């Protein structure tokens, strides 16, 4: 799933200015942006929980820990209650953060890598290469993304790696379009012409000259891609297309569907965890967009 704002390239008018390192001022811009700060705080919390999951809740979260279906607050030992198999919901939530973040980040990395290669080659070379690659992008954009992910996961066993790969393979067109648009507008700019006249190789011009200047919108896209990958992973796990040995928030929701009538907190809690994580990434993305693209809002 893609965000609309990302399909149009950012203006490149003050890029030369931006390329000059003014670290102090830029850092202050980040700290002053409330959207970015709010997102970064929530995201930082989730990342810390994922990193120290074993310290926070030692032992296997899939083990039976107490009586089944305890409501939050019933027992001080299980502050968020237990599920139908007597597993500690807090421990499941803490360990589930790992699957979401891991899949989200690796899927976005795969998607970004493919998208940046395809987009920069299409945008830089133009001509028939561009036509061909644009058709390829269109082809992938026409196929329903989630169905494509389901098909790729069905081809292999549903492990975390397969899921990340599938989401990455289905999500690259957004980045490719974005990078292509950036390359097309930067291709004829003065500094590229200068680099050409100095006799730099094409690879060097693409990688060292244009790419760094095309990055700001890609950075914004990256956070939104992680967010969307987490949402897709949650949907897949909910449909039971997941690694049975790994705890995941979407899987917790899928497991507790039968208890929706008598223990809806089992559905509400992991969903809230997903929403909070995705929200933090979207806030970071919005904040970055405001910082890197100051023109967009009054």
């Amino acid at each position: 799933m893609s965000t609309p704002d990302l399909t149009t390239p950012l203006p490149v008018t003050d890029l030369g200015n931006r390329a000059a390192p003014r670290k102090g001022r830029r850092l202050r811009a980040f700290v002053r942006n409330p959207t970015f700060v709010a997102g970064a705080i929530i995201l930082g919390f989730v990342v810390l929980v994922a990193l120290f999951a074993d310290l926070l809740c030692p032992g296997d979260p899939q083990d039976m820990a107490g009586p089944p279906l305890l409501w939050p607050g019933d027992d001080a030992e299980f502050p968020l209650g237990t599920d139908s198999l007597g597993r500690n919901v807090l421990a499941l939530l803490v360990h589930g953060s790992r699957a979401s973040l891991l899949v989200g980040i690796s899927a976005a990395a795969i998607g970004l890598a493919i998208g940046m290669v395809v987009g920069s080659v299409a945008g830089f070379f133009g001509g028939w290469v561009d036509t061909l690659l644009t058709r390829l992008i269109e082809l992938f954009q026409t196929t329903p993304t989630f169905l494509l992910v389901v098909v790729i996961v069905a081809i292999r066993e549903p492990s975390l790696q397969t899921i990340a790969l599938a989401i990455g393979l289905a999500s690259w067109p957004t980045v490719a379009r974005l990078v292509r648009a950036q390359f097309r507008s930067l291709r004829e700019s003065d500094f590229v012409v200068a680099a050409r006249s100095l006799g730099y190789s094409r690879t060097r011009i693409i990688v060292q000259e244009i790419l760094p200047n095309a990055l700001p919108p890609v950075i914004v896209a990256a956070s939104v891609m992680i967010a969307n990958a987490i949402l897709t992973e949650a949907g897949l796990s909910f449909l039971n297309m997941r690694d049975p040995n790994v705890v995941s928030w979407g899987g917790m929701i899928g497991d507790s569907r039968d208890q929706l009538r008598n223990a809806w907190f089992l559905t509400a809690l992991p969903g809230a965890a997903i929403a909070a994580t995705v929200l933090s990434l979207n806030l970071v993305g919005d904040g970055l967009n405001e910082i890197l693209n100051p023109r967009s809002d009054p």
Partner: protein
Amino acid sequence: MRMGRRIAATFKRTAIHAGPTVLGIIVLDFLLLQLMPGDAADVIAAESGTATAETMAALRERFGLDKSVFTQLVNFLSHLATFDLGFSPRYNMPVLDMIMTRLPSTLLLMVTALSLALLIGIVLGSIMAAWAGRWPDRVLSVVVLLFYSMPGFWVGLMAVVLFSVKLGWLPSDSSMTIGANYTGWAMIADRAAHLVLPALALASFFVAVYARLTRASMLEVQRQDFMRTAEAKGLHPFVIQLRHALRNALIPVTTVAGMHLGNLLGGAVVIETLFGWPGMGRLALEAVLARDFSVLLGVLLLSSFLVILANMVIDLLHAWLDPRIGVS
């Protein structure tokens, strides 16, 4: 007259453009499904439990699964030319028939969800743009961002808890009351009641997308020269916003709506499974679990065709909305 010619030119251009995409999708989907481990014969054999090597070979021969990949593709293409999507060994039914029985449900769900998402999204986005930076904009921005971040199926489940379990207002399973045999208005009311929760769950994410986009494009349009002209002509601010700003802001919104149609169809897989909605998305998941390639391939193809078709309609819509499009 000029408008008619412009729209006809746009139609010709998009139709020519769509041809290779259609072919590419057919080949891509076919190759993807060739990568699947095991075939339909394996599944039937596993289910009957008593298959010998001979019966397996007979099954493969009957469904053409023993031929080379290229022959299978050529076979598939020639069948496709006569609108024959193949035969499902698993369900013992032509694939096209299976999909056609599911297609109306999916279309109903999608059109409802898309209309809801566009309507609510455009209204919210316009309100946000009109009060940009002030409290209605801030409150709505937070609400919209929340919906942008929540998994649609979770929104659906929570709505089931509230509206079906706690309040008992709306049904949460299937697309009609089974065995009730309503007729006339009672039937329509029954269907509509079953449609509310799945449509809202499917729409929730896209409401957020369109609201954010409408807000951004409305603000963008305010800086255009024609807005100043309209203001200088002394038009009422409401007329300016509706006839000049919104009309122009609708172009990016409809473009993105077309791009998201595939995502909407994908989202339907989860929502249909969750609500027991007898649509194409649930069929796709059933086909994956049953390893029934021909059905899955058919669903993928038909969904992609739907997206292409919808985008052609949107291009025509643009030619009508924006006089600058299609003149060249």
